[in-house]
C-alpha cells in the first residue's frame, strides 16, 4: 500500500481541514466512502476518474484525521458535504455513496437535490425496514473479528488480513473503526426519520448491491428502493458489501450506463 496519497488537497469548511482527493475529468462526481475508509488507490476508483471529475473527501475521523470537536454524528457529516458542494459551486453532480457514505448521500439528497443530477447508493445503510427486534444490519461492533469478512465479502479470502498490516496501518484501521462507530453507533447505522423523507429525492437514483452482502442484504436493498421514487436496483453477482472491490468491471458498467450520458 502506498503511503502517499495522490491528488489530495485540503479545503477549510466549518473550521475543518477537509482532505479531498480530486482526480479525473468529465462531469463532477462526489464520492462518499464507506466505513472502511477511502478507496482512492483501488482500480474502480481509477476507472471512475477516466469518466468523471471525481471529488472524494475523506470523512473527518478517517485515515487518521481528527473528529471535529463540534461533530456529534452523521448529520454533521451531511451538512459538511452540503457546504462542500456550495463551496465548490458544482452543478449536475453525480452523488455516489458506499455503505455509510451511501447513507450520507441519501441524507444529503433528502435535504437538497438542486446541485444533483443523480444519486447512486452502493450497499448503503441508513434505514431500518424491519421491526424493533429484527437486526436488519449486522452488529459489526459486537461480532468476533473473524465473523466480519464473511458478511462483507462474497469471497472472504479477498478480505484484507490484519496480520499483514504495519503498525501504522493498524492504527489507521483502529481510528477508522472509531470514526465509523462515531457516525453510526445509535440508532445503529440508520436514521429512523429517513424513510419518511426519502420521497423528497427527485433525481434519478440507482441502487447497486452485492448479491452476497451479509451486512445489508438484497431484501434490505429492495426495501430501500421502494422508498425512493425514481429508483432502480441492480444486483451484482458474486459480490458482497463492496461490489466495487469484488466486481469492479460490472460495478463500473452499471455506473456508466446510468450516469455517463
Amino acid at each position, binding site marked *: 500500500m502506498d503511503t502517499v496519497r495522490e491528488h489530495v488537497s485540503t479545503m477549510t469548511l466549518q473550521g475543518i481541514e477537509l482532505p479531498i482527493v480530486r482526480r479525473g475529468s468529465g462531469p463532477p462526481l462526489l464520492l462518499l466512502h464507506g466505513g472502511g475508509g477511502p478507496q482512492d488507490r483501488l482500480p474502480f476508483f481509477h476507472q471512475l476518474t477516466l469518466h468523471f471529475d471525481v471529488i472524494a473527501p475523506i470523512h473527518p475521523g478517517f485515515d487518521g484525521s481528527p473528529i471535529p470537536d463540534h461533530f456529534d454524528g452523521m448529520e454533521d457529516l451531511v451538512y459538511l458535504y452540503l457546504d462542500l458542494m456550495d463551496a465548490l459551486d458544482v452543478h449536475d453532480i453525480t452523488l455516489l455513496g458506499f455503505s455509510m457514505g451511501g447513507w450520507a448521500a441519501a441524507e444529503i439528497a433528502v435535504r437538497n437535490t438542486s446541485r444533483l443530477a443523480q444519486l447512486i447508493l452502493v450497499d448503503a445503510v441508513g434505514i431500518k425496514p424491519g421491526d424493533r427486534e429484527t437486526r436488519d444490519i449486522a452488529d459489526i461492533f459486537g461480532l468476533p473479528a473473524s465473523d466480519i469478512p464473511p458478511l462483507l465479502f462474497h469471497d472472504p479470502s479477498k478480505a484484507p488480513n490484519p496480520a499483514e498490516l504495519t503498525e501504522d496501518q493498524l492504527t489507521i484501521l483502529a481510528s477508522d473503526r472509531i470514526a465509523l*462507530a462515531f457516525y453510526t*453507533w445509535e440508532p445503529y447505522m440508520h436514521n429512523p426519520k429517513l424513510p419518511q423523507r426519502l420521497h423528497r429525492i427527485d433525481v434519478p437514483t440507482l441502487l447497486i448491491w452485492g448479491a452476497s452482502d451479509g451486512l445489508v442484504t438484497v431484501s434490505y436493498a429492495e426495501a430501500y428502493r421502494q422508498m425512493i421514487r425514481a429508483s432502480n436496483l441492480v444486483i451484482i453477482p458474486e459480490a458482497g458489501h463492496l461490489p466495487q472491490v469484488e466486481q469492479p468491471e460490472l460495478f463500473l458498467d452499471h455506473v456508466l450506463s446510468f450516469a455517463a450520458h
Partner: protein
Amino acid sequence: MQTWFFTEDAYPYLPDAETYRSIRVNLPNRYYDPEKGADLYDMYLDLWCAADELGLEIMVNEHHQTATCVVPAAPIMLGILARQTSRARLLILGNPIANRTQPIRVAEEMAMIDVISRGRLECGFVRSVPYEAAPANMLPFRGPERLWEAHDMIVKAWTTHDGPFNFEGRWFQSRQINIWPRPYQQPHPPIWITIGSAGSAVPVAQHGHTAAVFLAGYPRIREIYDGYRKAYQTAHGTVTPLHRLAYCALVYVGDNAKTARDGAEKVLWYMTSNKVPLEWSNPPGYHPPAVAAQIMSGQRGGAGLPLQPKLEEQMARGNVFAGTPDQVFEQIKNLWEYAGGFGHLLMMGQAGFLSYDETLASMRLFTDEVYPRLKELTASYDPERMQELRLRQPDREFVEIEAFAAEFVR
C-alpha cells in the same frame, strides 16, 4: 490508612470456561440460578455487615451483564447497607455516569443513601471498563467529557437549595432541577473518581477529589500518582493530602503460609475468570487508536485479564497482597513507599469461591494484626521523609503492560 472491604459479588457457578466465549456481555443468564444467587446476595451483604462490625469501611461497585459482578445497580446494595450498617463509611465506586442517561437520577439516589446512612456516603463516579459499552449501548468515545458534564450537573443538584435551576449541556439536559432529599453531608458527600493514567488524573486533582487506582501496581503507580500530585500542586498550591489517593488490590491474610496461599489463589479468581473477547474489551472509542491497534494485533492485552495469572507474578507487581499478617503489612508498606504514599486501601477481600468463613478469617486477621500497623504508618507520613524513602527504591522494570492492565488505562 483507611481500608475498604470490597467484593464484586461474583456468581462463580459457571460451566467450564472452554464452553463459552465470554464471561461478560453475552453469557446466557440461564447459567444463573436465582436460588443460588439469593444465597450469594445474603453472603455478600453479611460480609459487608461484618466489615462494619470489624471496623473496616465498605466499598461496592457495579457491572452489567456479567457473572463476574452480579450488581448491576450498586445503589440498591448501598441502600440496603445504609440501613443495615451503623458505622462504616459507604463507598460506591462507582456510578457509571458516562454511561447513564439521567445524572439527576444519580444525584437523587446518592442523596437518599446519604440521608438514610446519616452522612456516611462516599460517592464515586467512573467512566467504566470497556465491556460496559455494549450493555450500556454507549459509544465510549468522549466518555470522559460525558463523565465531567454529568459530574457538574450532579454537584450542582446537590448544592442548589434555593429552588430549581436548568441545565442544558451538550449531553445532558434537565429542567426544573430541585432534588428532594438533598444530601446529608454539606456541601455534598466526598467524591471519588477512578483514574488509570497521569492524564486522567489531572481533572480529578484539579477538583480535589479522591482518585482511585485499580491494579496498576509497581509498573504504573508512580506515573499515575505523580500525575495527580503534580496537577494537585499546580491547582491548589499545596502537596496532595494522603487521603486523596487510593489503591485497589486483591488481599488475603492467613495465619500460616498454606492458608494464606490457598485463600489468595481463590481471590485470584477475579483475574482467572475474566475471559473476554476483543469485541467486548476493545470497543471503538474506548482506547486511543494506537492502543486499540496494539490490542487488535495481539501485541498488547485488553482481552480481559490474563487467563493464567500466577500468584507470585501478581504479588511481585503489587496487584495482590497475600501472606501472614507480617508479610501482608510488609508488602503494602513497600508499595506504599514506592508509590509515594496513599491514604486508602481498597481491599478486594473476596472473589470467586472464597467462602464466608474463609473471607471473614482473613478480614479478622487484617483488622487485628495488619490494620493497626497501617494506621501507624500513615499517621507517620511526612512528605519529605517519603521522598527519601522513595529514592531508595529505583523504578522497577517490568515487561510490557499486561493484558488486564489495558482496560484500566484511561
